[in-house]
């Protein structure tokens, strides 16, 4: 009975947080002289209005999920893997590189794609390992190291697009030469969605859920994240575990990059990560270590991103409205969590 009551208050607080975020965004819309209801309606119609739109949401959802599940691992280890953007980018670069080398060979496309995606994971993991090594051996905080590596990754992409990998004739911001359709992850007829990216994202979520909940690795990682010194005294090799969490997260980020190349853009473009790394950080903060919640929350965030695409056309509003709503949501959830803790404490003291 008691437990039940607390569960209801928890749900009430969560709904409160959503209301707070909507309230704030509505205020922003009113200040911008835009009709709020119309805007929300467009967001909804733009993301769930048709099968086509919904599958577009899933196209964005898959890489976002992969980035978020990776971040759950580093968050558990108490690490802020800001460098995830660069890790996605490196995944895309490695994938593109392997595809370019093998596209003219006689190897079967399935093999080429598999190799390309796997090397994307290696690329992401390597980039994350650099951040981890900087932290472990150089004493550079992973936030600063990761931020720096993000810039390097962006520069590397631009150099490749305008340098060695430029299109025949002249390089342009539209990216490298697109790959032949045989080297795309198979798509559903007339839609942009590849069912494979959805399968990979769900599989990643299940693996990470089991890894964090049911294994020694997950438990030790949690301990390292909560108290490194005690974990060391308890016999856990702490820096090796932190490094491992970087590798796992980097591999998943690299996988997201590989999906961006093989299933979405079919080439390397300058902003290949689409900001899913940073968006993933928001999702991971929002779900607060509960792996299964990433599925719906990432879906919601992806829907906001896709839904906002038509705002400029229909309402002359900037599509960054989705970012306002996402940011407001994370902030209000964190605020409400603080309020909830206070409320529970007061309730405990009363009872």
């Amino acid at each position, binding site marked *: 009975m008691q437990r039940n009551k607390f569960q209801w208050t928890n749900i009430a607080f969560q709904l409160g947080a959503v209301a707070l975020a909507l309230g704030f965004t509505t205020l922003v819309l009113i200040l911008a002289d835009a009709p709020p209801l119309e805007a929300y309606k467009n967001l909804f119609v733009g993301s769930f209005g048709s099968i086509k739109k919904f599958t577009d949401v899933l196209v964005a959802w898959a890489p976002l999920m992969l980035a978020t599940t990776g971040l759950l691992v580093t968050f558990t280890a108490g690490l802020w893997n800001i460098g995830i953007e660069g890790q996605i980018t490196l995944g895309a670069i490695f994938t593109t590189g392997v595809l370019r080398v093998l596209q003219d060979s006689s190897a079967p496309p399935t093999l080429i794609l598999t190799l390309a995606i796997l090397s994307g994971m290696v690329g992401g993991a390597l980039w994350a390992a650099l951040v981890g090594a900087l932290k472990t051996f150089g004493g550079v905080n992973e936030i600063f190291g990761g931020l720096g590596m993000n810039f390097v990754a962006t520069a590397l992409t631009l150099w490749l697009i305008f340098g060695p990998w430029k299109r025949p004739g002249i390089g342009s911001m539209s990216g490298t030469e697109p790959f032949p359709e045989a080297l795309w992850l198979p798509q559903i007829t007339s839609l942009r969605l590849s069912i494979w990216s959805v399968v990979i994202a769900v599989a990643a979520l299940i693996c990470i859920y089991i890894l964090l909940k*049911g294994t*020694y690795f997950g438990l030790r990682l*949690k301990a390292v994240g909560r108290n490194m*010194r005690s974990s060391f*005294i308890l*016999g856990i090799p702490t820096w090796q575990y932190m490094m491992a969490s970087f590798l796992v997260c980097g591999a998943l980020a690299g996988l997201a990059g590989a999906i961006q190349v093989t299933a979405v853009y079919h080439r390397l473009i300058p902003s290949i990560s689409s900001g899913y790394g940073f968006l993933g950080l928001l999702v991971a903060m929002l779900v607060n270590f509960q792996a299964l919640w990433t599925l719906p929350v990432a879906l919601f965030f992806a829907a906001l991103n896709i839904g906002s695409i038509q705002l400029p056309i229909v309402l002359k509003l900037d599509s960054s409205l989705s970012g306002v709503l996402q940011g407001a949501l994370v902030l209000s959830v964190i605020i409400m969590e603080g309020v909830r803790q206070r409320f529970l404490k007061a309730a*405990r*003291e009363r009872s």
Partner: protein
Amino acid sequence: MNVELIGIRKTFGPVTANDNIHLRILSGTIQGILGENGAGKSTLMKVLSGFIQADQGLILLDGKEVKIHSPADAIHYGVGMLHQDPLDFPPMKVIENFIAGSPGKIIPNAKEVIARFNELQRQFDFTLDPQAHVDRLTVGERQQLEILRLLWLGAQVLILDEPTTGISALQKLKLFETLRKLAAQGKTIIFVSHKLEDVEQLCHRVAVLRRGQLVGEATPPYRIDELVQMMFGKVVSFGGRESYKPGEMALELKDVSIEDYRMRIGPVSLQARKREVIGLAGMEGSGQLLFLRACTGLIRPTAGRMLVNGKDLTGKGYHTFLKNGVVYMPASRMEEGLVPGCSLMEHFVLARDQGGFFVDWEGAQKIAQEQIAGYNIHGRPDSTVESLSGGNQQRTLLALMRTPASLILMEHPTRGLDIESTLYIWSLLKERCSNQGSAILFISSDLDEILQYSDRILVFFAGRVSPPLDAASTTVDQLGQLIGGRGWDAF
């Protein structure tokens, strides 16, 4: 300032921590509050110092009713509390800690404050360096700093929660002297402890709490057996000393030297045999901690050789020592021993190297229940460690020590535990000694504990290490002298 507590009542869920407590403390008195763990001492003091609010009851200061809502409120009324773990800012300087928390100007006049600080500390013969960093101070010195800070903020009532744990014998003497001076100035001192001898030495009056109720008060001369009976409801006594049957070599040190930025220890040679208990005595910061940590592999010795079970582990890391059966229990529970946010069950899984990839959570549940029962821990398998009381955290630490262990190294194994728990813990440790053949090295600032449970004793003084003394033929007096730096010429 006269303090009067009338009908204080405080419950936490089903537990009644304070049950209708009436207590009157007159100005200039050193009032002892005695009771075992969980008797309600800390709760009562937290109510008085504003950390928590009582459900019922009144607080009167000099006859006037006051409502204390926060520690800032309390100090405003002149009530200051010294916590068991000093609430200071370790990375900052002494003088910055002194200034922090004081109301007043935006830019403090450092020179003037330092002068005031030195003037204040001279009154009590403290010798703190205002420019020293707090993390370099001992617990005793941090306590002195906290006393000065509270006095500067205008404290008329000083509450001290277990102030003699973790400080050296000499610092304790100085603390008592200080408290007597303050009482003579008309300040009210409330001294919370479970140490009978401290209360006996210091307090003008004693109130005894048991299970949330005030069971009695006493004035000198105290009858110790009476106080013990009030505290526990029955008389407990220490068991007789048993002679040990030493086994093979568990730990051998050959001319080991250890150094840190303050101190150089050794060269020390020692042979600890299986089933032997060696107590490490000394003022805090005399080198015993460095020595113990070197035996765990956390600190590498600068010279000499270390053998565990005959195997040379010189220069190896902590985890290698652990694999070779060296088990270590640190003193700071939440910083070095336990992981906040993890449950008891998760701790037991972490501490056991079962191998494999997946955790058997059902088995873990069973193991956790066994350990909880075996070590008398008040908690459930899914309780997080930070929700446990200090004594239960301590028992959890003991339960987490791996078995089998050939060498057990402990810092203050029973700090913060009441007499009954202490007896219980030591009976478990002794059992480990005789059944598993573990050797034990432990640090304690409690001389009685050292004499009671050790077979041999090493005394540390300013980095010097005495030869092993036979505990059976050593007296408290001898030990006290050595700790204080006298009688070393004999070695």
